[in-house]
């Protein structure tokens, strides 16, 4: 026998989509929101994003080296986590906070439970909630220093516009009215990456176009939340209020980028709808009946914990089982 050809089980072709290409697409989809954050909050925001991203990547690398775990082809998932953590930081936060958050996300939420694919909650959200609990004050400071010294370079357009303390969602909670235009395009206070619904939707559209996410979770989430707002939000059928609620806080970022996280959302199609509905209800409860204005992060991490149960309940019916005859 001169030459033996390769033998392997079928199929012999692959689609070409890999974990790396998917994570790269998510990172690209996050760019518009990050870019607006940097425009809005200046170099300080860029620095925070870089610090959190690099910390995540470095933490993962060092952990895998120390544990002598096999390093496969690099899949960029830690970079996505790092970007999301950075996007969840107020622009005024001291730099060690994103560092602590990133290490927590990668080590405690992700690697300790087995690494990629094994974490039971979204690492970025786990870190965000951890930071909000531990450093509540620093994480809730949205006051931008105005027009002093290098403020414009450091804090971008926000320091010119004179964005005051409260985030638009907190203002809504306090019963004030806000500008929907500003909230939609992101000319408001808040954490770096969640102020602009428009930029997040742009990124989401890219992910849908690239078939990275399906719309089942975000649509079920946003629709359920809308119904909740109209029925139980305390403002009746006030669509301006509804639109403000949809565009503010972490809702858009959460619905399109965090709730759709593969690892921590149901794998079954029916489960994804149930998951979305659950998120809508929890977010409504937290926003309108809780102490905080914000409810998206807690809603998502609680729903993350229910994923195994949801999957069990929504296993698809195999083709032909109990069919005709």
């Amino acid at each position: 026998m001169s030459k033996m050809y390769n033998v392997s089980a079928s199929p012999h072709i692959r689609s070409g989509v890999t974990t790396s290409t998917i994570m790269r697409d998510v990172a690209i989809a996050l760019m518009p929101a990050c870019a607006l954050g940097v425009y809005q909050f200046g170099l300080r925001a860029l620095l925070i994003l870089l610090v959190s991203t690099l910390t995540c990547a470095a933490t993962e690398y060092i952990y895998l080296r120390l544990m002598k775990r096999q390093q496969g082809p690099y899949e960029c998932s830690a970079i996505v986590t790092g970007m999301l953590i950075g996007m969840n930081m107020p622009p005024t936060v001291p730099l060690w906070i994103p560092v602590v958050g990133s290490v927590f996300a990668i080590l405690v939420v992700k690697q300790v439970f087995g690494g990629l694919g094994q974490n039971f909650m979204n690492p970025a959200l786990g870190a965000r909630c951890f930071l909000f609990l531990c450093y509540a004050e620093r994480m809730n400071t949205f006051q931008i220093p105005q027009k002093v010294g290098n403020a414009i370079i450091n804090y971008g357009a926000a320091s010119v516009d004179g964005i005051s303390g409260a985030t638009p969602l907190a203002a809504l909670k306090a019963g004030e009215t806000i500008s929907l235009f500003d909230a939609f395009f992101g000319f408001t206070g808040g954490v770096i990456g969640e102020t602009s619904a428009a930029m997040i939707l742009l990124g989401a559209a890219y992910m849908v176009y690239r078939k990275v996410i399906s719309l089942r979770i975000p649509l079920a989430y946003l629709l359920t939340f809308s119904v909740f707002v109209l029925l139980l939000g305390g403002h009746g059928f006030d669509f301006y209020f509804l639109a403000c609620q949809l565009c503010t806080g972490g809702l858009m970022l959460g619905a399109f980028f965090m709730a759709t996280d593969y690892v921590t959302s149901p794998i079954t199609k029916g489960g994804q709808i149930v998951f979305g509905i659950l998120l809508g209800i929890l977010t409504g409860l937290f926003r309108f009946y809780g102490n905080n204005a914000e409810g998206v992060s807690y809603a998502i991490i609680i729903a993350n914990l229910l994923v195994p149960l949801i999957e069990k309940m929504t296993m698809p019916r195999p083709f032909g089982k109990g069919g005709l005859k």
Partner: protein
Amino acid sequence: MGKGTFSGGVHPWDGKELSKDKPIVRLEPKSEMVFPMAQHIGAPANPVVAVGDAVLVGQCIGEAGGFVSANIISSVSGTVKAIEPRQTVSGAKVLSVVIDNDGEYKTVPGFGEKRDYKTLTPQEIRDIIKEAGIVGMGGAGFPTHVKLTPKNPNDIEYILVNAAECEPYLTSDYREMLEEPEKLVGGLRIALSLFPDAEGLICIENNKPAAVAVLNELIKNDKNIKIKVLKAKYPQGAERNLVYAATGRQFNSTMLPADVGCIVQNVDTICAIYRAVAENTPLVRRIVTVSGDSVKEPQNFNVPIGTSHAEVVEAAGGLVGEPKKIISGGPMMGVAMYTLDVPVQKTSSAILAFAEDEVEQYESSPCIRCGRCVGVCPSHLVPQKMEIAARLFDNEAFEKLSGMECYECGSCTYVCPAGRRLTQAFKQTRRAVLDARRKK
């Protein structure tokens, strides 16, 4: 009526343009021919010739070893050189009759004589099909006379011609429909004559408009034959999905198409029925597509069964460079072979040669639970959970997840971004479960 599609499936690059416009070329090789006695599902055939015997084209050399079995017919004339185990497509060694081909193609008396099927009784037709050694030529190789003898013949409402040809690169059925459509329609008419109340449905994917046009012209006077155009996607040609797409009826792994009133036959099989019944020509040849980026001139051949793969590839101009992978059948469900030195058998629809092996380029990495496998599974299973069960050798959990409903189409593995070898794990586990059941 079916919606023409099913939920799930994938859209790989179909590669059909390499060979779809190449007319079928008839091969008459002069070299040694090998006829494995097991080319079908069921009991192997028993050799009925001895070493040194002279044989003719159309002569039975292996007799069916039971009801679910099929005759093996010689496709050449010559003398029997050996009866010994020989390597086959699957890699296993199978008892085979080896014939020293004299290259003259002398036939048995009556071979190729025209015959009017309308003068035959249904039982005579079934007997002719049985004698002719016809089996499902789409890949499974289920004996056709068994399929055409259902328990309750009156319940059969549809005879479906599986002309989906959803596997990438394959164009053998397509060429046959274009070049010999009258044989396809004729074969279907014969099959329908066995089931007077049934309707014939020729199921073609919508990427083959030329074939649809040709067949439409031929069937315009047949009230009981229709063409059902299906959406082009893989695995549209899988029996369960085809029946659902064409008729809206569902059945599972424990049932046969006949349980929902359907009989499904592949294009080449239907043409073989026509040749056997109307032209007194048993199953001795089939259409084979030779394609892939390592084949010099991809094209379609009419090959005598028993010809070595190497000889067919030679006829296509040979191989270019050093191919890494040779596949018998399509790239989704075909079998990789380490050598070309095995015979073409009744179920060999294609020989593909590729310069690169895509499988070796993708390392398996951890599952990220993206759900793509769930989305594409045509059997609506959850391959992600099945793989965990398979990896843990937990056959019970695998069965609970309806793992036995998997028919190994490979769609989940094709889309898996983590490069996990799902289908391979399922094949192993399914075999293990079937073995355990047999032992009970």
